[in-house]
């Protein structure tokens, strides 16, 4: 019974699970690659106020500063009616190169998330993650039974190579597979709005704003108090709209701050 529970989903979903696993493995290399090419700063070395000041001197039309989880600092700006996106050196605020997300990564991500099929594809991918979970759990149970209990799980397997290779590989991979399938299911559930992904707990935009004289961005206290490593996103107020404010998104949460006037 348990064996059927393991082999039937395996047969049905083999191709799907393989596509998801391989594309996921390719995507998992991305953050590491990105980290290699970005300047890292120690905690306490640079705060967001300093960065914003340096960026403002190189990009007068700055609209937004973004820091990816792997440390790349990206500036969105507007110049002469045309918009640009540039990777910057956080230490100087100077532009390094125009930032263009990789088309290959986007293609791979689309394959991994929805097999290029939009919303129905998201469902298929989610089902793939569920199959992977079923396979991992039933595989682990089979393995425990074959070795005579959970305590013997790390003992050598008996039999010829063809009898034991699947169990050997499975034993090595099962923890990773469980983690991947559970995180995949979680992301699928957030895509379909079944569970909250944290974006609901954002502060409302302030209804009352006390307009005063403008401070230079580098002097704003909230920005000085935020370490660069905690920064996710700093949105500047629209130029020419005195009712607008700064919006700061950090690893801990979001806030709206005073406008520069």
């Amino acid at each position: 019974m348990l064996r059927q529970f393991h082999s039937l989903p395996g047969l049905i979903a083999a191709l799907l699970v393989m596509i998801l696993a391989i594309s996921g493995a390719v995507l998992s290399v991305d953050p590491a690659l990105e980290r290699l090419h970005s300047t890292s700063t120690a905690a306490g070395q640079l705060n967001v106020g300093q960065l914003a000041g340096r960026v403002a001197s190189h990009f007068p039309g700055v609209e937004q500063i973004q820091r990816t989880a792997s440390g790349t600092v990206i500036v969105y700006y507007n110049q002469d009616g045309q918009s640009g996106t540039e990777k910057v050196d956080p230490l100087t605020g100077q532009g390094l190169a125009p930032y263009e997300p990789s088309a290959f990564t986007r293609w791979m991500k689309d394959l991994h998330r929805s097999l290029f099929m939009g919303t129905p594809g998201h469902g298929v991918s989610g089902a793939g993650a569920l199959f992977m979970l079923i396979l991992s759990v039933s595989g682990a149970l089979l393995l425990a039974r074959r070795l005579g209990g959970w305590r013997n799980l790390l003992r050598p397997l008996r039999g010829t190579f063809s009898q034991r290779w699947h169990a050997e590989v499975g034993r090595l991979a099962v923890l990773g597979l469980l983690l991947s399938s559970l995180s995949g299911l979680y992301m699928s559930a957030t895509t379909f709005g079944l569970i909250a992904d944290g974006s609901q707990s954002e502060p409302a935009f302030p209804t009352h704003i006390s307009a005063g004289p403008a401070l230079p961005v580098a002097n704003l206290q909230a920005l000085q108090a935020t370490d660069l490593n905690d920064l996710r996103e700093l949105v500047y107020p629209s130029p020419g709209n005195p009712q607008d404010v700064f919006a700061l998104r950090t690893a801990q949460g979001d806030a709206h701050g005073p406008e520069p006037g």
Partner: protein
Amino acid sequence: MIFPGFQVAASQQVQALATTFKQDILMKKIIAATCLAGAVALPGLAQAREVTLTTQLKDYGGNDAYLAIYVTDANGQYQKTLWVAGKKAKYYRHLTDWARGSGMNPSEFDGVSGASVGSGRTLKVSVELADTLIDAGYQIHIDSAVENKREARADVSVPLTSKGSGKPATGSTYVDSFTYDL
């Protein structure tokens, strides 16, 4: 004016059928009266016309774009949503200025939203627009956003005038050209 009537009817649902029937007639009277009052008041207040919005996107190479097309006053203060392209409300905050102005309140874009728009594609929609907004210093703005790429406030910003009708305006980020036909 219409709500007290509805509330009375709702709270007395458990009462005898005859009472409900009377309530029903009363409610219909209220509705009829309100409609009549509206019909008398409307022509003077809000002459509206149909306007066609044509938004041609650049070939920016990326996921489908979310767009918010809305009217602001001369200072850029939000007035009214004309169209929102993109169905997942959790991404609306990336349409920064529009999100702030409208408060992302569903009643602001009820009935005037649709699918997101692909790279290089054209969005063409017809919406109702009050005559009072034309030639009165108002502007049409488009905010745009694409996943993993930058978001743009005022990708397009054009004055809303009868002279500007049919004349394409260029966008700064994802929008190649935008035309409104009054």
